[in-house]
């Protein structure tokens, strides 16, 4: 599971996509270019939960990791790109 920049050196558009393995994990353990389904947002912060929801980040929705940069994760959720930190990535459980 190589997240570093060295494994994605070229600038072309990728057409392949990896399949999710079907295990439940949190997003910080995920693979790039794999489409996951969100299972749960593990947090006590209701404001955060509502905010994530309004972006389309909630149980049952699709989420893909685009890059891992500097301990931040770039995600694709409903046609937008977001950068989140490791703490937040660990709170998003996916399958």
């Amino acid at each position, binding site marked *: 599971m190589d997240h570093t920049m060295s494994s994605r050196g070229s600038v072309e558009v990728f057409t392949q996509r990896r399949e999710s393995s079907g295990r439940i994990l949190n997003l910080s353990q995920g693979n790039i270019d794999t*489409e996951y389904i969100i299972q749960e947002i593990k947090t006590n912060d209701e404001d955060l939960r509502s905010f994530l929801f*309004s972006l389309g980040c909630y149980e049952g929705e699709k989420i893909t990791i*685009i890059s891992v940069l*500097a301990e931040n994760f770039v995600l694709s959720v409903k046609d937008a790109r977001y950068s989140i930190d490791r703490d937040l990535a660990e709170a998003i459980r996916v399958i």
Partner: protein
Amino acid sequence: MKLALTGNPNSGKTTLFNAITGKIEKVGNWAGVTIDKKEADIKKSLNTTEGRIIAIDLPGAYSMSPFTSEESITRDFIKNENPDVIINIVDATNISRSLFFTTQLLELGIPMVVALNKSDLNKKKKTIINLEALSKELGCPVVETTSTEVTNNGLELLISKVLETKGTSQIPPFSSKNVDLKDKKSVEASDKERFVLVNKIVKSVENRRVSSNKQTKQDAADRILAHKWLGIPIFIMIMWMVFSISQTYVGPLVADVFVSLIDGFYVFVEGLLGNDVSPVLSSLLLDGIIGGVGAVVGFLPLIMVLFFLLALLEDCGYMARVAVVMDRFFKRVGLSGKSIIPMVIGTGCAIPGIMSTRTIKNERQRRTTAMLTPFMPCGAKLPVIALFAGVFFNDAAWVGTTMYFLAILIIIIGALIVVTITGERNARSYFIMELPEYKFPSLKRAAMSMFSRAKAFIIKASTIILLCNAVIQIMQSFDWKFQVVAEGAQNSSILASIASPFAIILIPLGFGAWQLAAAAITGFIAKENVVGTLAVVYSITNFIDTEELTLVAGGSDVASIMGLTSAAALAYLVFNLFTPPCFAAIGAMNAEMENKVWLWSGIGFQLGMGYVAAFLTYQIGTLLTTKAVGTGFIPGFIAVVIMIGFVIFLMKKGDRKAKKKLAYSS
């Protein structure tokens, strides 16, 4: 007629607002730029009715769910102000997220038109949206717009649809009427159903060629620009380029023109006055007003170029990536990457910088950032840096650069102090930032931003700065009996007697002269005043030598007039840069803090920091250069120790609070 413009952050609301009203409100390519609501009349060319149409630009919102602590401005506005029509600006490249808010807005019972904005981007991506189908599903008109284009932008059609829709009603596609707003579970369930409906609508009207979760060239660019190690040097290099272009290359070239104009004006007025006018009046007019203001205005071109470049930077979308890069470091001092944006903006002017802290959700982080942003040297402080670098250090480049690095150091220390005192060292805070698409920055918008800034500066210079300089000139020319002060007896002037008590406090810092104290005090009204007041008080008429393009005419003369050693001069510079900002910026701080304790602590911190930093600079500098400590070492040292001791006491108290919190949570 009242129009409310609302929509997701970064959907192009403010650009559209500017386009239909002809205004130049602040725009930036990162979510959260619009903070307060703004109102203006629609352009005559678009307004085909007899009466006024007022457009109101609201801050962006992702939804109107009752449990989000932000976005209440939109909700409250619509409930309280009763707009006639709502224009919902929807980012055409992301309707699957945007329509959530749209369907909520449709339930308000206010006639609505959807502006499908950024439609030029969709054309590029070859995404097709069936407008009629979408309009049918939503139950309201949908107009394609591209607010960044001057012509062919869909705005006329938009306004005509708005006029048609006025007074009509629509049936919302989704109704949450039966949901108990107080019950979290049922709100959540209703919201999920809403998204199910939105997904269905999107599927039926949108046809994408490339799926969004595929890698693109922009993602590859992000991997470099926001790279773990490369990101920082790239950012430093870009900021360095911004500064060297404005301060070293383009700026001074244009300044040359300005200064010749001012010189010419001075000679002209001098000629007009002739020999019969009283010397007091002539010195008031020539040295006080033209000299003082001229000293400042000469720097205007440098500041204009700086603003132009900063606007380009904000427009292209890079700032969000900088926030990602810096997040790692800011986390260590209790902030997030988002705090870098106000600080970068603050290098132009602290006021918009402080206002942009509104996008930071965490209250403590927002207030801390608002308090620390003024430490970044702003455009008004540039003349001060330039003056001292020129007079005392031969225009050496290290002076300015050191000030910026010192600012960063102070910000880091400040953030650490605040997070320790508030006992939140171990608090968890999540960072999430939308990464907008990169776009080629609009030169036109950057130019407009530059000119609006120049206009504001000229207004400021011709009112506040002019007034200050005139008052200072008068106060230093007369004594309390309102008699003119003799040539060598300036110490009996009104100004001297007011400033002298303050000057005593400044002795341990190396600059305990009333003239310097007076200049520093006027700096609170506008930082440029430091230069203006010094020009007046020391009767220096011209800081910029037009023949040699050096920053000071007769640098060593000026140095000897001020009577400062290099260490003291550096200390004075540090003092003026790192004390509280001008009153206008303090006003902005007050608006963001929303809490008097924070506000006064912030100002107290800034005062203390300025004093301590100047003290250290002067004493250590003097020690290094003369192997002895400077004047007033002991009293200054005591004062500094008391200040630092107080802060450490607060920090220890906060530490105990933090440990307790940690114990509770585990």
